[in-house]
């Protein structure tokens, strides 16, 4: 660590940024893998089933007592799943539009991963801020990038040149125009209150004045529901709808390209959870404890990251839980909700907040 001091600030910045990107990427990828496992397990439990409980690599035999327990929990399942995706045949049907067909998974997955860049996932570790890019327009960046993910889905639907993916793609675009405006409008009151677009500042404001979820419950509800639509989760999984569209936009995809869509969806869930934690639930802070202020101690820094991850996990579980509660919306119903309910409510919320702030 001593020798790092002699490096120029630019070199240090590049070095630390690269390190943070690698670690965050690793955590998100692991998060995606285990989110799939949690999804399978929780779904199974809700439906009175058992869930994956068989995968046991050879080294389990050497772990006494907890080894079999881990196998029962399916801890090793994601490894097998990952391996399976790598080894499967990557089949490209001959009737697809090849270039777009190859491009679509990438367009879905890249924005999902890019949104994580502005999320402050911890306070500081040493003297290093725990955010990859401390942008002053963080939230605008997020909204800008997140919308791009939908084009991947629409493109996949178009490129597949087959009816079910096409319907999925159409639905996806119909869905996007219904929730995105409401989603954008719902967070405006937060900026009115915090007077900043920087996510770090928003977290700081919440540490001082209490969580946004208590101050802006209406905004939170709208954002939460829009986030469900954004991540294509039930009850808004219109583009995918396994039961009617045979998987929707990714019907024609296989192997790693399919895995990328999957990865994009779960990375989106992670990013949305992180956004909700940051905007509404105080980010890495925990009120009433020492953990609500940045600290130079490494231990506290790690605890902050832990708090953030725990809050995120709660939202992930909610995402998974809700899946088994509500039937899928028709897309005219979704549009109805988006345009005729949420936009007026969000606008009223902005107006009300503006009046309160002005007074």
């Amino acid at each position, binding site marked *: 660590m001593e020798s790092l001091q002699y490096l120029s600030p630019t070199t240090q910045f590049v070095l630390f940024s690269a390190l943070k990107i690698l670690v965050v990427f690793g955590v998100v990828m692991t998060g995606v893998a285990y989110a799939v496992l949690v999804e399978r397990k929780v779904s199974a*439990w809700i439906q009175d089933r058992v869930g994956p409980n068989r995968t046991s690599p050879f080294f389990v035999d050497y772990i006494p007592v907890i080894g079999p327990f881990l196998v029962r929990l399916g801890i090793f399942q994601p490894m097998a799943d990952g391996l399976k995706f790598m080894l499967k045949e990557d089949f490209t049907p001959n009737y697809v539009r090849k270039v777009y067909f190859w491009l679509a998974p990438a367009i879905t997955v890249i924005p999902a991963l890019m949104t994580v860049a502005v999320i402050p996932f911890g306070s500081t570790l040493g003297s290093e801020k725990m955010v990859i890019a401390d942008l002053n327009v963080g939230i605008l960046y997020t909204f800008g990038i997140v919308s791009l993910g939908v084009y991947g889905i629409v493109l996949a639907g178009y490129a597949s040149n087959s009816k079910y993916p096409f319907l999925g793609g159409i639905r996806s675009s119909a869905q996007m125009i219904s929730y995105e405006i409401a989603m954008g409008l719902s967070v405006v009151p937060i900026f009115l209150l915090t007077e900043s677009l920087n996510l770090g500042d928003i977290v700081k404001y919440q540490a001082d004045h209490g969580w946004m979820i208590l101050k802006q419950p209406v905004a939170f509800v709208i954002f939460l529901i829009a986030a469900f639509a954004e991540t294509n989760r039930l009850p808004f999984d219109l583009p995918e709808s396994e039961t009617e569209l045979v998987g929707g936009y990714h019907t024609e995809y296989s192997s790693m390209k399919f895995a990328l869509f999957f990865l994009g969806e779960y990375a989106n869930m992670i990013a949305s959870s992180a956004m909700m934690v940051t905007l509404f639930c105080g980010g890495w802070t925990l009120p009433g404890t020492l953990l609500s202020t940045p600290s130079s101690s490494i231990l506290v820094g790690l605890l902050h990251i832990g708090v953030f991850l725990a809050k995120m996990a709660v939202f992930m579980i909610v995402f998974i839980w809700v899946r088994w*509660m509500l039937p899928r919306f028709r897309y005219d119903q979704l549009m109805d909700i988006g345009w005729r309910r949420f936009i007026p409510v969000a606008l009223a919320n902005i107006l009300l907040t503006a009046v309160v702030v002005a007074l």
Partner: protein
Amino acid sequence: MSTKVVDRSPLTFYERTYLPAILGGLKVTAKHFADTVFKGKSVTMQYPEERWVVPEGYRGAPYLVKDQDGATKCVSCQLCEFVCPPKAIRITPPGAEGQPADRRNAEKMPKEFEINMLRCIFCGMCQEVCPEEAIFLQKDYSLTGESRTEMVFNKEKLLKLGGTHGGIQKWKHKLEEAEAQETFPVQTR
């Protein structure tokens, strides 16, 4: 007469907010979740380790049975072969100079008895038609093999899998009667 008028009154404002539906859903799913995780009320059977109890009268795979003395009960009458709807059974009779039956007093036994388990539809007609109670649908429901030929069960295999079954002992009594005839004290006056 039995017309039931379903109440289709318009939704109240509270209902239109989706809240009662969401709360109801939360309650149901949470209850099932808790029941499965904490009370172990999962409905899944861990198949290869746990198995269901096969009920009496279950129609599993048909096997040949032996009598108490360990002799083949089948007398190669070929009724089952004839009645078998998917023609899964093939019997090779012993022929004129064939091996004699290993059961005392029985006229003959099949030289070869094959059931193609891939063809068998487990209808139980062979069991019903058999005059000797020599073939029974037993409790095996999971037949696997790596090739088609492996799934054609021959006489030896069928007898081994079938085990021993008492049932009627038609020929045993016939034998006793015949023997009794031999030693019947005939009065010569």
